[in-house]
């Protein structure tokens, strides 16, 4: 038997669950799981890896039945392992009904609505859409190592 270096698989899930803190301090708003939201951004916006918190810059206007800040993300499935990859995916689709978007949009920001500053988690892009008196639905990928919305491999 020989030793092998590894990022321990369970530690990846533990990171998603906030059990490890490598920073100088940890400030959490609660002791239960956090609430997350998803907001939509215009194709002309510049959301991406540099985002630190949710803000309205480039977000769809609060018109046409869209509420700035976005919609709540259903989180009924806790992070888990698929092989050695920690994965997490929202447990329901996101949907905006009776929507008329203020312009073409192609991005969704996932952010932590429990945190005091609405910390950004990830930006996801898709083909540009413009909705007129209709419904926009974003169905989540399969919650698996190769496809889950959030993955720590």
């Amino acid at each position, binding site marked *: 038997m020989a030793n092998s270096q590894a990022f321990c698989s369970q530690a990846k899930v533990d990171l998603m669950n906030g059990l490890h803190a490598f920073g100088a301090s940890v400030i959490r708003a609660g002791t239960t799981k956090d609430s997350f939201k998803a907001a939509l951004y215009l194709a002309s916006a510049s959301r991406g890896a540099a985002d630190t918190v949710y803000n309205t810059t480039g977000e769809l206007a609060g018109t046409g039945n869209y509420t700035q800040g976005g919609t709540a993300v259903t989180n009924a499935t806790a992070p888990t392992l698929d092989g050695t990859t920690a994965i997490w995916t929202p447990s329901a689709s996101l949907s905006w009904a009776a929507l008329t978007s203020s312009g073409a949009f192609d991005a969704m920001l996932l952010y932590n609505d429990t945190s005091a500053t609405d910390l950004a988690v990830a930006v*996801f892009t898709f083909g540009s859409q413009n*909705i007129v008196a209709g419904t*926009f639905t974003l169905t989540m*990928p399969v919650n698996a190592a190769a496809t889950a*919305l959030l993955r720590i*491999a």
Partner: protein
Amino acid sequence: MPLIQTTHGEMDESLLTKREGTIDNDNELTTWVEYYIGDELVHRSAHVTLKKWPDGLGALSAVFGQ
């Protein structure tokens, strides 16, 4: 015929011209439907099913260790 929500309120589908489309690639399967009165777009809905996020694009921040 079903009623369709439009910019002019609910209208019978038989009064509208319907166009549909699909985008299917490695990252998403998207279907959309549009309804027109003449050249006027009065309804557009879209359903995006996410498949997999490409490494190196917008989702890279969510994929650690790659």
